[in-house]
């Protein structure tokens, strides 16, 4: 079987890679690019722990073939606060509101929150819950995550609507 050459822009960095056609974006991010912030909780598209952004839309990276995102822009949790100093308002709110326990769902939750807030800067509680409905969390009961997203939306609005310190997807 032949490997395919693909080019991905991940968190602003360009990579040219040779991958087998069956490799998922999740595998390529975690194993080839060592971007292990993106998790894998099920591999079947049901838990959301692997959520990343492709051209500004969230996808389950465990169900996305790497060859299918050739040439696209990808944002992972590592790209939310690229300089490592100032965190993205979503990350700050997750930390301060107690939205993180084991943390395994956190990167995926944050990406879903980013997508939600990019499209609905001032979501109500129902919208937030709906926006997170593709992400499972076994630890928190979701409430503090919902509070964190509401808090992030307030902070992002203060930052003139820009989705915070991170690179724009």
């Amino acid at each position: 079987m032949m490997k395919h050459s693909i080019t991905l822009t991940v968190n602003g960095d360009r990579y040219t890679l040779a991958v087998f056609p069956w490799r998922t974006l999740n595998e390529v991010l975690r194993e080839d690019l060592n971007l292990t912030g993106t998790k894998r909780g099920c591999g079947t598209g049901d838990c959301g722990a692997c959520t990343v952004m492709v051209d500004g839309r969230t996808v389950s990276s465990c169900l996305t073939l790497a060859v299918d995102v050739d040439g696209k822009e990808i944002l992972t949790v590592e790209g939310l606060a690229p300089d490592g100093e100032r965190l993205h308002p979503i990350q700050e709110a997750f930390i301060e509101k107690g939205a993180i326990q084991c943390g395994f769902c956190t990167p995926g939750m944050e990406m879903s929150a980013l997508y939600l807030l990019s499209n609905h800067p001032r979501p109500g509680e129902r919208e937030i819950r709906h926006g997170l409905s593709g992400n499972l969390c076994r630890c928190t009961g979701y409430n503090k995550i919902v509070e964190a997203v509401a808090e992030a939306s307030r902070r992002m609005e203060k930052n003139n609507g820009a989705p915070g310190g991170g690179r724009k997807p």
Partner: protein
Amino acid sequence: MKAYSIVGRDIPRRDARSKATGSAVYTDDIKLPGMLHGRILRSPVPHARILNIDVSRAAALPGVKCVITGQDTPKIKYGNWRLFPATQDEYPLAVDKVRFVGDEVAAVAAVDRDTAEEALSLIRVDYEELPAVYDVRRAIRKDAPLIHEGSPGNVSVERKIAYGDVRAGFREADYVREDTFTVHPVSHAYLEPCSTVARCDPDGRITLWTSTQTPYIVQCLLASVLGMRENDIRVIKPFVGGGFGGKMELRPWEFCAAFMAKKTGRPVKFVLEREEELVFGRRRHPMRITSKVGFKKDGTLVAKDLKILLDGGAYNAMGPTATFLCGNFGAMLYRYPNYRFYGRHVYTNKPPASAMRGFGAPQSLFAAESQMNMAAEDLGIDPIELRLKNAQVPGDVIPDVATISSCGFVECLREVARMSGWNRKRKTHKPGRGIGVGCYSFISGGVFNWFNTQYPFSAAEVRAFSDGTVHLLTMASDIGQGSDTALAQILAEELGLRMEDIRVTSADTAMTPQADLGSWGSRVTLMAGNAVVQAARQIKEALFGAVSARFNLNVIYDFECKEGRVQARGRPDRGVSFGEAVAMAQKANRGEPVVARGYYTPRNKGLVTPAFSFGAQVAEVSVDRETGLVEVEKIWTAHDCGTVINPTAVEGQLEGSIHMGLGYALSEELRMENGRTLNRTFLDYKMPHAPDMPANESLCVDTYEPEGPMGAKEAGEGLVSPTAPAIAEAVYHATGYRCKDLPITPEKILKGMKK
């Protein structure tokens, strides 16, 4: 409540930043040079003799570096109940016989996962199938197939408790009822699948990074099955993505990784698939619970006779502890003058059940609390009133178990009634709406030493430095619940330091003090917390002596560590900074490091637990009478966890418990057919999602546990139990359908309403 400066404050968890940025390293994020990838071959049949295994084709596949079967291993059985070797019934890989669909039969290590997976398909196993049994009542019959030699009737563990005179009690009773409840298997469903990486060090020792709640247990049992010395194995717990009881034993992949790392000289990683977790993984025990209770007309409890059959699946796992504890949970919360328990742990040809948040309490309390609600109705007494009448209070004695010390159960009941508007809602409710109550009491760690450890139950080491920092080393395992943060808060409080002055190293058996039995049974806050306090007090003694000498103070002066200083109480001018005090103590002792070790092993606390938590919960539901769908509108909780170390963390435990309790009551179920688990993905294992969660309101009643560190005790495990009985009662209140067999499904409700 005593005023603290750091304990009781909402301090964000210390690992939150690394988790929020994705830099926290979990086991599957570890990649070592030359690392191989392992996969496990499992039995496709529920019960069979292994006649032959042919691995030659798998071993010949390019890229395959190692293939092992049970015959290649030292064939040593293991199990967590080391105190009773007869209960140690598992081999890391099956020898001679398989006992459930999923039993581990062989393992492969290859250069990548795909190759390992392909190799599995090339292994040929010849089985001679044996008759299998899946139902506990059939399994205990004389003619049932025998699953383990040496366990006649397939009963592996029995526990009996009796005090008072149950027969006389029932004679005295004005009202007696007997009910049988059944509860179903559910998955821990921690988001991080089990994973492990083993490396054989150049000197032949093993380093194992593994997703576990109990590094010390893994270390000891791995040593025993490999025939190695315990300290030749180093177990490190990286970040762990949840455990809930499902990661507290040695597991076959941990053995296989270590064994194959030794054989190949290369690191070996195993990561389970979610399908393996759901279909073959540990689960909460299904049980069949028969309970008979007797009351006086006025509602006073006089007797209880409880019989439980635990469906253990094919191996003991943590079933013996669950059996043991079920007997205790049956007699908690209320005053039972006469009590009898008979529990049996029964083997069936199904994936083993084991510990899961609550450890037998969600099952036995579903029965006990539901029965309380039924009795209240028959006696014509309000369910909360009936509970208040029988509630345990401080100083109550549970025979052979404990004397209850702190206990805010009565306050919990009163508060939850007030918060929820119980009296009004109970009397006037719209059709299709209902309100119900459930309660819990739980242990703050177990006393019974089934692991037969020679070490203290918890230990901590504190090193103090002249730059004003301290280093806490503890084997307590943070698996998401936040123990690293809670223990650091306790230490900072005791030493008058800030959180940023404290470095924590936890759960690395080569670094952190022997020992700690790990994170389960809600033992960490109380036990590890006490060990930390003890170590900190020794540090203070060393510093107080040095500071007293420096200021030439009269012997009557007391000292304190406060706000980064060590000083005479009431005379802050007579003092130095914490770092200076450390330097002084060291100089006085020719440079001897300022290090202290603390430990905790319960004393005079009976055989069960040093302290009990309590709580009461009310659920309000609406039920669609056309479809039978239940919507839980709101949950109110009042609970007693002693001093709250970190309010956000306690709320987080409560909300996570509600999530799990909601799933247990309404939607989660591992569906079984002939020993096979049918749920293969999260799509068909229905955990609540964010939109499914009810509103919730909670309150901690103010108590102080004398045995706990700064008055703290269990929070967050017992809380998983009251939700199912509260919802069941609310559904009954709304529809007239009384659930005695969890989960409460729309089908059951519709059928029940027709009757």
